[in-house]
């Protein structure tokens, strides 16, 4: 029995199996469901920890199953894969706890947690995919398993949001499929390779390769919410808070961004892509998205929508870092994958707490809420400052490396984008903080009576997760230079996978 | 006679316009012309199976080549075909049959004539069945004549007795295909091939099959004419 070949599969199964069992559970079996959820999440954490240690010591884990003659389903845990796997696994654990608290007493939880587990399965599958077809498989699975979560509430509005979500993502998926098959007919392989595998296709295929690049990026750009493919994200905010938190801040959008990293580095190879002249337009698109998302965020009164536009803006930092095509900028982009995840999930958790505890959905209702819910708003503040890029929070590290990387690659204009974006971030986050901390609270909150937490701020399951993630966000910034910090790991990736000699 | 009225009133409904008729007629004519050309392009020397049939006729158990093809060389087709007939009846019965026809009481002439004709028809059927082995005739011809007798009976107001309408009737209806399937399985077990008759008994076995088929065909066709499950109307 070769355990190394089994572990990636086990990582996938550790959320798939609980998910499938949960589907079959009766609604009232709350305890069994909680046990299954936590068991799955914890076993995944253990497995991923095991792999982290192994990969750090130059050990690789790979599962292969034959899918089609000549095409295999490959799950491979390399450094880059593990970055995303670890992020999803860790945040899944936190979000599961949050979701248990958030959905307490609400209907259809078996369905919710079943699909929730499927989503995580799809996300780790996307992370560990060792070739494009495996990636495609999990990428589409992610689309399908998020749909029921978006329409979970069963309102007409939710249904419409779901249709919009699908219209975007399935269209993207079709483009991605076209690009993938086309590429396969040219190269005969889809296996992710350091420095890419398309260079063997021959000179005469260069125009086709540019088209394929565009198709793949368009397919991925939908989930990464690149403008103009971002329209689904704000609408999808109709979903319950844990969904917005994990999926639309971490799993789904990151799957798109992560895919772009894969395509640029492991399909085309960054040098070859630069040679094709496709990275610059990608960088411009990312920069535009950064500014556009921030500008739109400025004018949202709905808290979750503002966060959604902020996500659109922030995810493009990752794309920008990759597209600048220099080692330092890449480190900045990749590390932002983790940093943004930690910070944004904190913000969404807090938004969920406000909505669940006090019925606050709009920023204009947040006056003085810091006094009513100090812990929540403290976590929110950390997240917001991180987004702005204030040291020593994680977001600062990302922006620093992005800026340095841009200068290193001779793309000075990026600095302006970064500065502008930071200003805009400040412009849409600081008023919230000001209102929450320094304005007088109103006589009563919109829906406070619904839950009676007594003297507590809110349920512990709701409070703990944002506090933990905000602490992690600070830690990732403060301790960026110790081993196994996100930054350290990303440097390892850059060293081993992207810029190896 | 509800159905007849309905069929007549339908003439008043709109018909295809002349232009449409021409538009349809043209491609149909083209098809006809093409097929006519094909017909004339057949060479008068047929590459058919006449020769082989003649060669093997002696081993088939019968001397009428058509019967030999029908019951022996291509007996499997015939097996399936008896099932088709049974299936049609099943389909008709599944539809629950049609409206009751007016019950007629036959006049004395019709009554006595049909009494006279019936034995004749049965006799003719039996003859056709027997003669099929070496001359034109056979189960289908015989079955059709038998069905004619049945139709005559129905038209003169005769009905199957309720006690016979269930299992006994069904037994007869199944006899043909049932005998075929049974024969197929037995020959498979004994001779190794489906419907491979032992040469010395082929004639007899074919006659048995044809007899069973004749009864089934006769009754099935009659049943199709009746258009409903006999039991139902008797109970009502």
């Amino acid at each position, binding site marked *: 029995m070769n355990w190394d070949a089994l572990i990636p599969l086990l990582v996938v199964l550790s959320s798939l199996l609980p998910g499938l069992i949960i589907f079959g559970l009766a609604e009232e079996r709350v305890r069994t469901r909680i046990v299954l959820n936590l068991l799955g999440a914890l076993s995944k954490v253990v497995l991923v920890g095991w792999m982290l240690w192994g990969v750090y010591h130059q050990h690789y884990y790979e599962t292969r199953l034959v899918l089609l003659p000549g095409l295999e389903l490959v799950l491979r845990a390399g450094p880059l894969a593990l970055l995303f796997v670890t992020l999803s696994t860790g945040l899944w654990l936190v979000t599961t706890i949050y979701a248990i608290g958030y959905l307490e007493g609400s209907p259809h939880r078996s369905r919710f947690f079943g699909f929730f587990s499927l989503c995580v399965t799809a996300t780790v599958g996307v992370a560990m995919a060792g070739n494009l077809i495996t990636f495609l*498989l999990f990428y589409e699975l992610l689309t399908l398993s998020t749909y029921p979560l978006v329409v979970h509430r069963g309102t007409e509005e939710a249904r419409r949001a779901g249709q919009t979500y699908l219209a975007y993502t399935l269209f993207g998926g079709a483009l991605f499929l076209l690009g993938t098959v086309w590429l396969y007919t040219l190269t005969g392989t889809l296996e992710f390779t350091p420095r890419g595998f398309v260079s063997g296709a021959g000179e005469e295929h260069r125009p086709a390769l540019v088209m394929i690049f565009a198709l793949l990026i368009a397919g991925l750009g939908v989930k990464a919410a690149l403008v103009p493919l971002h329209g689904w994200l704000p609408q999808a905010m109709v979903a319950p808070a844990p969904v917005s938190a994990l999926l639309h801040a971490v799993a789904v959008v990151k799957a798109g961004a992560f895919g772009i990293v894969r395509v640029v580095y492991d399909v085309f190879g960054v040098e070859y892509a630069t040679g094709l002249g496709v990275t610059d337009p990608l960088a411009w698109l990312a920069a535009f998205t950064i500014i556009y998302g921030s500008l739109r965020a400025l004018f949202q009164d709905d808290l979750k929508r503002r966060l959604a536009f902020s996500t659109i803006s922030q995810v493009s930092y990752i794309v920008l870092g990759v597209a600048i095509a220099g080692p330092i900028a890449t480190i900045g982009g990749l590390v932002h994958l983790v940093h943004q995840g930690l910070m944004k999930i904190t913000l969404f958790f807090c938004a969920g707490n406000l909505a669940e505890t006090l019925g606050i959905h709009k920023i204009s209702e947040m006056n003085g809420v810091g006094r009513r819910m100090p812990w929540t708003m403290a976590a929110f503040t950390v997240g917001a400052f991180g987004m702005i890029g204030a040291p020593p929070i994680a977001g600062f590290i990302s922006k620093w490396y992005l800026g340095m990387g841009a200068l290193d690659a001779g793309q000075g204009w990026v600095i302006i984008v970064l500065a502008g974006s930071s200003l805009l971030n400040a412009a849409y986050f600081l008023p919230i903080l000001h209102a929450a901390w320094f304005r007088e609270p109103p006589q009563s909150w919109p829906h406070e009576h619904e839950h009676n937490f007594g003297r507590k701020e809110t349920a512990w399951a709701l409070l703990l997760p944002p506090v933990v993630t905000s602490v992690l966000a600070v830690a990732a910034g403060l301790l960026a230079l110790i081993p196994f910090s996100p930054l350290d790991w990303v440097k390892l990736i850059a060293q081993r996978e992207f810029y190896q000699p | 006679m509800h159905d007849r009225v309905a069929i007549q009133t339908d003439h008043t409904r709109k018909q295809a316009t002349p232009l449409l008729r021409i538009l349809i007629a043209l491609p149909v004519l083209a098809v006809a012309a093409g097929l006519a050309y*094909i017909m004339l392009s057949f060479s008068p020397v047929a590459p058919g199976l006449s020769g082989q049939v003649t060669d093997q006729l002696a081993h088939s158990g019968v001397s009428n080549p058509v019967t030999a093809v029908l019951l022996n060389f291509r007996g499997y087709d015939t097996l399936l075909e008896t099932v088709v007939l049974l299936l049609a009846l099943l389909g008709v019965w599944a539809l629950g049959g049609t409206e009751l026809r007016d019950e007629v009481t036959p006049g004395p002439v019709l009554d006595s004539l049909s009494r006279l004709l019936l034995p004749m028809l049965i006799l003719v059927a039996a003859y056709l069945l027997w003669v099929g082995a070496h001359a034109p005739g056979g189960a289908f011809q015989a079955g059709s004549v038998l069905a004619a007798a049945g139709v005559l009976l129905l038209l003169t107001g005769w009905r199957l007795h309720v006690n016979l309408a269930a299992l006994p009737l069904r037994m007869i209806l199944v006899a043909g295909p049932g005998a075929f399937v049974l024969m197929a399985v037995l020959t498979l077990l004994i001779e190794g091939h489906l419907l491979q008759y032992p040469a010395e008994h082929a004639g007899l076995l074919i006659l048995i099959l044809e007899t069973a088929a004749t009864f089934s065909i006769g009754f099935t066709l009659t049943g199709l004419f009746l258009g409903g499950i006999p039991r139902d109307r008797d109970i009502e």
Partner: protein
Amino acid sequence: MTGTPWGIILIMLPLAGGMICFLWPRVSTVLGLLTSLAVAVSVAGLGWQLQEYGVYRHAIGGWGAPLGIDLYADGLSLLMLAVTALVGLGVGIYSTGYFSCEDSQRFWPIWLFLLAALNALFLAADIFNLYVTLELMGLAAVALTSLTGSKDALRGAMRYLLATLLGSLAYLFGVALLYHGFGTVDIGMLAERVESYPIAWAAFGLMGAGLMLKTALFPMHFWLPPAHASAPAPVSALLSALVVKASFYILLRLWLTIFGPLNEGIELLFGLLGMMAILWGSLQALRQTRLKLLIAYSTVAQIGYLFLAFPLAMTTGASAWHAMAYLALSHALAKAAMFLAAGNLLRFGGHDRIADLDRVVQRLPLTAGAFALAGVSIMGLPPSGGFIGKWLLLEAALAQGHWGIAAIMLVGGLLAAAYIFKVLGHTFTQADISHEPVAVPASMEWAALLLAMGAVLLGFLASPIFSLLDIGNAFSLNGVSP
């Protein structure tokens, strides 16, 4: 058990079963289920036999072609037999919950005869024998369609009967031409003898047109939606999953052995009609407000995909045919599951208006799941059998620069997603209740779900299934033929 004649059992068993059900209606359900199970086992036996000893051939009556009739099975036949057995088993289990006692006594004998006809058809190697099986199948299918006796069902059945009879006659005319032109009705011998004469072309024109009509290829699909939508749910499943595939199978067989090698050009017409079928069927499906009609139009579209393989196979050969076989297989399972799920919804809510589906996802989760999983395969999303087929077909299209076909396939997939999620979206929402919900037996929900799961699982079975398919090299033009 090397000598067990599994192929013959596949035909004789359901025939005998059907007759016994007719004689003693009371045992119908039990006997029918046992027969379905035995048929499934026999297919497995045949599969094992094929794998061990290669193609299966049986000379009926011991005469051998051309005088006698041969039975023949290769990988392609096996696949069709297997999907028939699977869908048959699923529908059989479903029908125990669906039909009242009396209805089930009418259903079983006809369905067993239909099963025998399908098996006989997939095992036939003789074009006249194929005609008889076609007719047996057609009449059984019409009888089943009209089983409810409602106005719509009668109209649908009538239209279907006329279409199927016309198709059969055209086919028979072709048989007449081929026999008189080339002196045999055995497919293998015809493959050797037929040359590019006008007679051969006229025969192909007639047979092809008849079979296309029976397969409901656009624009000859007019009879399909009313018939498939108005039949009882288990029957709709059988019709869409198996019956249209059977006539397609004959067309494919004839093409692979007799007509394909003659000339080039016709395959482009097939491809074009296939593309139009995809677009038209999908758009019509999207327009429907009734669930069963939507599913029926989806069948029209999915049939189009099968015909795309004809132009693509001209240069890529086996891989496009593999793709087509895979699409046929997964469509059979998925579409059967969909119709069964629709039957559950119809039973539950008393209607099949899509906009008025009322929180089905909570109230009939297994059914909603079955519909969704089947939908995944129909849309061609991974992981599912439909995805594998679509991937291979797309690959063939792009490799040959057939951009139009590739584009249509992608658009077809998106349209499919649009009409499937149109349904799924409404299963989450609340609607005005017009009808007291009726309990749906577990057997009905599980039958639908298991078939749908089968369609998804197919996504992981491509390699073993392709190696089975290649037994007998059915897909090499001019190769070994029945």
